[in-house]
């Protein structure tokens, strides 16, 4: 009986009738310093959306430990579905104001963070 429940649950998940647990937590600009410290001081922010077909290559590429994927300009369930299916080897987050803070206007976009300081 238990085995059938698991199979039914998996089928429902595949058909999309049951939402999967959120895989990508929200990431705000204030969270970036702590995340950078945890990942060696430097981050490579890869911005993507489910509707951006050009973003797919960025998600399926092999990433270094500095890379984090930030889903933006899209609905959370669509972004997480992309992550579930493509299984990129970098952690994903949902944009919570980072695109606005960094002035990101188009996708795909790859940004190094901290941003290089401007020469005086």
């Amino acid at each position: 009986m238990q085995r059938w429940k698991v199979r039914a649950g998996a089928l429902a998940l595949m058909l999309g009738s049951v939402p999967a647990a959120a895989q990508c937590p929200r990431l705000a600009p204030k969270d970036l310093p702590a995340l950078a410290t945890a990942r060696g001081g430097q981050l490579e922010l890869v911005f993507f959306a489910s509707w951006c077909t050009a973003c797919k290559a960025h998600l399926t590429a092999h990433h270094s430990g500095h890379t984090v994927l930030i889903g933006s300009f899209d609905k959370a369930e669509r972004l997480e579905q992309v992550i579930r299916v493509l299984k990129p080897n970098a952690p994903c987050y949902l944009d919570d104001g980072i695109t606005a803070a960094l002035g990101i206007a188009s996708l795909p976009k790859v940004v190094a963070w901290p941003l290089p300081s401007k020469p005086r």
Partner: protein
Amino acid sequence: MRPQSTMPTLLVGVLVALALGTASETLACASCGSGGDSPLVLYPNEPYKTYLGISQQSHFETVYADGTVARDNAGPERRTTVLAAFGASFSPDWFATLTVPYITNVRADRDQSGLGDVLAYVHWTVHPTSMLAPSLPQVQLFAGYKTGAARSVYDYEDDAQLDAYGTGFPEARAGVDLWWGSTAFQYGLAEVASLPFAKSYSGASRTPGRETRTTATVGYSFGEKAKLRGGATLAARSQRMADKQRIQDSEELDHGLFLTGDWQASERNDVRLTYARSAAFGRNKNATRADTMTVAVMRVL
């Protein structure tokens, strides 16, 4: 034996690779760029967007009900339209636009200028393009309303009708737009139905016929920097009514063509160049034939 040239094979290979392999902008629509009166669409990454276009319409001819074509003794020889539009997104799937035309009609050495009919549209992306299912189209539904406040051929004051800037009737619209844009070669189909409302002129209630407009578009995307699209439109309008009586032989048919180039000047600015010709091919009836050239700048705010 003559050595076989590898050039055609190479050329085909390059073209196939360009068509299938080039990362390209997936979002657009079949009707945007077709020279229509509501040209602004917003992508999910665009919270606000403006459109400012100037178009020049010339070579006016009337295609009569029997198919004969003639230049008119009234009406403009040249029309310049400045089209300003503003769009706002409410979510990745919803956006609305407001379009205001300012029209200048010119005939010989005389001209008249005034506001045209304002258009408001709401767009809902029912099914967005997805990198997981690139063969499925983006499906967008839209509804709109056009005011009929601008002066028209029913209430002009200028002897040559140069002060006719609108159709004279308010109109509700609804439609669907399908767009396959996941590869460099892109195509789409749009269908919009227009329902005009009755209005009284000179004591008589008048109603234009209902219109359906079909737009078929094919395009090619040169990476993210440039897009080229072309296609055909078919607008069919049923008979007009005056005091609830159908006017015989008043139905309209217009087969148009268009070619549009979009160039991304910067991350937030696009330039669009459009050529459109109405009543361009096939059987046309009670239609206006004209050439329209449009230059427009779109800016994401």
